[in-house]
């Protein structure tokens, strides 16, 4: 019996390890290829076994591609600003909705909730943002449309607040003469740091990975984030050269190790998330399960 059980454990481990290989294999291919020599890549194709070693792709990125650094800076700025705005808006809306004494609480909640049931779609949004808010080719285009607040997280936070903050605590603060703003900042926010931390990760990830806003609303490379740049380069590596930095016309596209550069840039775009993730894995898992099981 015990032996049979051990055999079962080994089988489960084996299956799980296979799945992990399935998950990680493409990343390995990406990283190994980004360090390969251009000529060897053209001859043998991308491979998981390093047959040659060359830093040419990364060197090229560091020397020539001011675009990439600019895009990196934009990504960081957009992620930070967007996440802060999102969390502030979400908290400010979720807290009143979590208060059982708020007049017409259900009606207000429905106003938020309804946006999850029905939407106008891409065409009206696109026309509104471009024709009436003139958002095309601005940094706001990367921050405001769609991502700045979402009904799902508002409702997730509202539920969390109404479960975790006892009414007596709020009542006691009120008796002590604290106003609503003071209660929010001094009591509610410190008590809900775990859910806020989870939201910061989820929203931050959404901003870091977003490329659709850039695809819809940007035509000038100088506003590109790293994801938008990657997206544009997937079709045409030339984008890297038609950039805002001076002397671009002197760069010869034929001298570019384009096969390995493609992989190197994808590594550069993916690496920060992959490096940060293990440290926050617990919060990610929590965010996923909290959000999915109890909306």
């Amino acid at each position, binding site marked *: 019996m015990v032996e049979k059980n051990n055999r079962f454990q080994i089988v489960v481990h084996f299956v799980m390890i296979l799945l992990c290989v399935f998950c990680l294999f493409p990343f390995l291919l990406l990283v190994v290829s980004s360090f390969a020599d251009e000529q060897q890549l053209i001859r043998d*194709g991308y491979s998981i076994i390093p047959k040659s070693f060359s830093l040419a792709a990364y060197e090229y990125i560091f020397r020539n591609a001011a675009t990439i650094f600019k895009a990196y800076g934009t990504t960081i700025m957009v992620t930070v600003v967007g996440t802060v705005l999102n969390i502030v808006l979400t908290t400010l809306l979720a807290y009143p909705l979590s208060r059982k004494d708020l007049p017409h609480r259900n009606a207000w909640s429905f106003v*938020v909730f309804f946006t999850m049931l029905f939407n106008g779609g891409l065409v009206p949004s696109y026309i509104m943002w471009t024709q009436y808010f003139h958002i095309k080719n601005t940094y706001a285009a990367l921050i*405001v449309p769609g991502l700045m607040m979402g009904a799902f997280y508002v409702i997730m936070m509202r539920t969390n607040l109404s479960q975790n903050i006892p009414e007596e605590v709020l009542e006691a603060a009120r008796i002590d003469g604290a106003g609503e703003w003071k209660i929010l900042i001094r009591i509610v926010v410190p008590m809900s740091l775990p859910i806020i931390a989870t939201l910061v990760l989820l929203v931050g990830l959404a901003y870091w990975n977003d490329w659709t806003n850039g695809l819809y609303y940007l035509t000038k490379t100088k506003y590109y984030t790293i994801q938008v740049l990657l997206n544009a380069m997937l079709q045409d590596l030339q984008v890297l050269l038609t950039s805002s930095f001076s002397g671009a016309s002197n760069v010869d596209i034929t001298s570019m190790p384009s096969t390995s550069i493609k992989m190197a840039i994808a590594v550069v775009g993916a690496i920060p*998330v992959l490096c940060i993730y*293990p440290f926050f894995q617990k919060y990610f898992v929590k965010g996923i399960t909290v959000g999915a099981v109890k909306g």
Partner: protein
Amino acid sequence: MKKSIFQRHRRFIPLYLMMVPGLLYLFINNYIPMAGIIIAFKQVNFRLGILKSPWVKFNNFTYLFHTDDAWTITRNTILYNVAFIILGTAMAIVIAILLNELRSKFGKKAYQTVILVPYLISMVVVSYLVNALLATETGFINNSIIGAFGGDPVSWYSTPKYWPFILMLVYLWKNFGYQSIIYYASVVGLDAGLYEAAAIDGATRWQRIIHVTLPGLKPTIITLVLMSIGRIFYSDFGLFYQVPMDSGPLINITNTIDTYVYRGLMQSNNIGMSSAAGVYQSLVGCALVLLANFIVNKVSKEDALF
């Protein structure tokens, strides 16, 4: 009367003020575009503005449903989603149960960490990964697998017949970890007493899984599957547009409602048909969410969304 309403609401004024920015954002970002569905009933002329553009009744819809596109995009969107729901759910349940049967605490944690990695990557990076595998000249599959066995290289990006499988594989690769973790959380939350009782009754592992774990998971499965059915008219734009690299020969097999709307708006400048397709998606999508929730309400009330 007026005064009493004011007094009744006065102590809530700070709360109302807090709600203003969020509600304003929802009004602009969500509610104005909802009103914008009138675009689908107009011949848009940007010089006149949306409101003054002439009405064309249902013409845009008539044109849309007279093309083959309407059928193709509906078929693709629904069939891919059905495949994703069935395969994704089955895989996630199996993995959740395997994780739960595992005794090693370290193994549980390590495997959970790794299978979630693909979920964290943007679809653009996924397109690069797929391209590294499938590129005709330099791709891993053509060179290291087909090449090693002496086969002829396949021109993946212009051969439609492979793409249903490729897209399913990419979808599973990216999402199975996420779904497995949701189901795993649900398995962990099951009543431990039931397992003890099953052990005392001498149930085998298999019997325990069939008679305790799966029935315990039923509410989660029903809710999540019905919610996905509510989203069956929507697709992941990146998966269907970016992963096949917007390749022309593949369009029949990769075009979904979302990619059709995007192409109509940005590439062929056909706002009428594009917005008609968008409204079609929104209305049917909304009806499906309501229907799905109605069914959840009947099956297990506490799992209903509203």
